[in-house]
């Protein structure tokens, strides 16, 4: 079929979600012609996220209304390299978005800064514990960028999304009520914390009595109406409990729709093309420069869009897949431990302790994404890992995200799966339980990587991305240790019963765990071990940048979005103030 060649533009964005909208807005404002290519449809609050239709658990949580349509595109998965990867035929473990706004439409809103330690995992671990403390096959590494360099960009993203929270370290001074372990921040959060539910208050009281320093989880559910630097107003959260997995009818959960799109769509320099599925980035004959991208629209027409600058701003998987499909950077070879694209894929190691009470009621259906109190004593390297046999950790939190009974109906372990015995416990505990959840980190390993599947194809005939992944001993040991610590707090809270659920055994793609897939286009200071440099710029094709959690060399014990937002502004700063002035590889 004939390919229609389009008029060149300055910048093409592949994906119009959290990172793409910010980059589009800033670069269009600076006078560049920007085209945003989005594989899904347009979605906005006024026409798509309205009451009462958005309060529909079946549609959004079980039928994945806002998530990727796997009939067109999925990934294949195997636990180990000696297995045959098979397609993820239905969603489960993680839920990538589809359409304008991406996964930042249905996200939970938790907006953390990774710890200073997270950005220097390898060098700081070796400095404190010696080389043998890291597993031999662990490929976790330093990011090439430090917390101090990212701080202004964390700040900017938090002020863009109107994050509600409480500073714990203001310019080096530890502040009561905040997280004393966080890196120094230049300003207080733009909005105060949300009101706290009963579960969080019980957790806070007990944690304090045990000597911990609890603080409110920073979240993009805004605690009051807030207008950001782009003139967008984000409304106040009403604690409706339909947050994670859902879009916000109030425009109170910060997202591309609420925070950026209103002004972006008014900029004449920006053009959004939806249902535009990019299949390839085309390089010049020397493979040193991207000249255009090829995409297919919803009528099956193929287009070539020439551009000076190509920004990969899609979900982790598509950033990696487009790099591999287009021959940008050397694909990772786990046997030889050479090559970089697909290297350092990591995930999250979530676990929990659920408590059941006979004498307390929690109105568990109320809440907001990220509505919780947390402690950070057991995250990163905030505690001594000597003799523990693992590195990393995770934050503990307790609160109310809004329980809906198809998905969230905790029962004490030992309860039958069905019948009257099951029914009785579901009825008893729906509003009488809450959990301490642990956002466990995940290190990277030689055998955990992404490449192109040799067998399965997407709807466009392109190979699917293949994921080889399992949790290693470090993650299992960490999860057991952390979950036991949480169980000690839970015991002190005094429930009638509790379930202690560390994350052990093989990773399975079946039950929902977390949409925190990371890596594959890891950033770093060394082109032998990173696909992009510290500015998220391809080492091999310098007019391509891959922005997002795909750049994480390993995953921390936090939700990734705050760090993704900071990396976006960090890369933007490098593009605007360095690259555009003198195009070429940044050093």
């Amino acid at each position, binding site marked *: 079929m004939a390919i229609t060649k389009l008029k060149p533009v300055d910048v093409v964005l592949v994906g119009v979600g959290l990172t793409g909208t910010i980059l589009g807005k800033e670069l269009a404002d600076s006078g560049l012609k920007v085209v945003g290519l989005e594989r899904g449809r347009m979605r906005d609050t006024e026409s798509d996220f309205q*009451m*009462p*239709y958005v*309060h*529909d*658990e*079946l549609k959004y949580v079980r*039928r994945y209304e806002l998530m990727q349509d*796997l*009939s067109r595109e999925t990934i294949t998965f*195997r*636990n180990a390299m000696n*297995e*045959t990867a*098979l*397609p993820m*035929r*239905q969603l*489960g473990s993680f839920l990538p978005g589809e359409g304008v706004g991406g996964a930042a439409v249905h996200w939970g809103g938790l907006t953390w800064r990774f710890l200073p330690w997270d950005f220097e995992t390898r060098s700081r671990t070796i400095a404190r514990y010696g080389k043998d403390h890291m597993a031999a096959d662990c490929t976790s590494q330093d990011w090439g960028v430090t917390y101090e360099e990212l701080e202004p960009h964390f700040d900017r993203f938090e002020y863009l999304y109107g994050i509600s929270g409480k500073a714990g370290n203001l310019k080096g001074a530890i502040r009561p009520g905040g997280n004393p372990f966080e890196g120094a921040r230049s300003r207080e959060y733009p909005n105060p914390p949300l*009101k*706290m539910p*009963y579960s969080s*208050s019980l957790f806070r009281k007990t944690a304090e009595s045990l000597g911990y320093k609890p603080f409110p989880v920073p979240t993009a559910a805004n605690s009051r109406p807030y207008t950001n630097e782009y003139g967008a107003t984000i409304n*106040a959260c*009403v*604690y*409706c*409990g*339909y947050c994670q997995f859902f879009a916000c*009818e109030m425009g109170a959960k910060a997202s591309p729709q609420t925070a950026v799109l209103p002004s972006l769509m008014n900029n004449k320099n920006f053009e959004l093309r939806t249902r535009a599925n990019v299949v390839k980035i085309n390089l010049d004959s020397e493979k040193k420069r991207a000249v255009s991208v090829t995409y297919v629209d919803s009528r099956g027409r193929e287009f070539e869009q020439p551009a000076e600058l190509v920004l990969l701003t899609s979900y982790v998987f598509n950033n990696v897949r487009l790099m591999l499909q287009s021959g940008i950077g050397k694909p990772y070879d786990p046997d030889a431990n050479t090559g970089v694209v697909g290297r350092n894929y990591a995930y999250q190691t979530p676990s929990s302790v659920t408590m059941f009470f006979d004498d*307390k*009621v929690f*109105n568990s*259906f*109320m*809440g907001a994404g990220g509505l919780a109190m947390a402690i950070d004593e057991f995250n990163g390297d905030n505690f001594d890992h000597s003799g523990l046999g693992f590195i990393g950790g995770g934050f503990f939190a307790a609160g*109310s995200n*809004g329980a*809906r*009974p*198809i998905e969230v*109906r905790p029962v004490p372990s030992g309860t039958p*799966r*069905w*019948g*009257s015995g*099951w*029914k*009785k416990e*579901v009825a008893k505990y*729906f*509003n009488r339980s809450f959990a301490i959840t642990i956002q466990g980190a995940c290190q990277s390993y030689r055998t955990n990587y992404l490449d192109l599947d040799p*067998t*399965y*194809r997407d709807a466009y005939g392109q190979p699917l991305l293949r994921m080889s992944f399992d949790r290693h001993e470090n993650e299992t040991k960490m999860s057991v240790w952390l979950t036991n610590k949480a169980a000690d707090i839970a015991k002190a809270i005094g429930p009638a019963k509790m379930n202690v659920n560390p994350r052990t055994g*093989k*990773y*399975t*793609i*079946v039950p929902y765990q977390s949409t925190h897939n990371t890596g594959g286009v890891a950033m770093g200071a060394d082109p032998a071990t990173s696909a992009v440099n510290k500015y998220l710029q391809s080492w091999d094709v310098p007019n391509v940048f891959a922005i997002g959690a795909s750049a994480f060399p390993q995953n921390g014990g936090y939700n990734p979005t705050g760090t993704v937002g900071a990396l976006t502004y960090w890369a933007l700063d490098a593009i605007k103030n360095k690259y555009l002035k003198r195009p070429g590889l940044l050093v």
Partner: protein
Amino acid sequence: MKESSGRRRFLKWLGALGAAGSVVQAIPPAAAQSQSHQHAAPPAARGAPMAKSQVLGYLTPVEAEFVEAAVARLIPADELGPGAKEAGVAIFIDRQLAGAWGTMARNYRLGPWPEGTPQQGYQSPLTPQEVYRAAIRETNEFCLKIYSKPFNALNAAQQDQVLRDLDEGRLALQSTRAQLFFNLLLGNTIEGFFSDPIYGGNRDKLGWKLVGFPGVAAVYTGFIDKHNVPYRAQPVGIGDIQQKLAQVDEHGHAVHVLLTRKD
């Protein structure tokens, strides 16, 4: 105290149930009788008049009888109140099977189809529609062989045994793994019991009332920090708002009618 008021509510509900009850047109008298002997629920539950057949989208009448009998055991009517059958879950499942979910319209459907490891998830070449069709036939064949009756005509203890055998993989089906079918059936039953009534299940919001879930949310800003104070409301469904049977505020959130202790 608590139990007797629960029982009172159940009996009150039975009275109100009237003709609404079943997907299927009729149950053979003998089977109905044998059921009434076995169920823990009051005999009156079994004797409730069967409704006229509802329109089916995918299931055949024989399959609908199977599904209705199965969901009645998975979430039974008991002293806590009505179960999945009374909540219309069989109709919910029929509609789900007839729609996009039943044909895996948004799932990856290209082969090859090796069975894979448990960690690799759903790898059956059959759609949920096809799984239900094949598994119901094969389970009924098993029941006829062992008990000389189809599943829906077995007594409750026999039905529970067959369901346990499916759940634990002891009953070998030819077309698909028994647990694949059982997990679809159980998952759909829970969905049908707790989803918004617009999908045909959760009739009269029976599932929501059981657990104390208010459905479409109100603004909870004034209530979220009232600690250990139960918020008990008459649940509101999407349809109630569409049909203006429930009040809403300026943003379309439900204005809940709060229940008092006596309700």
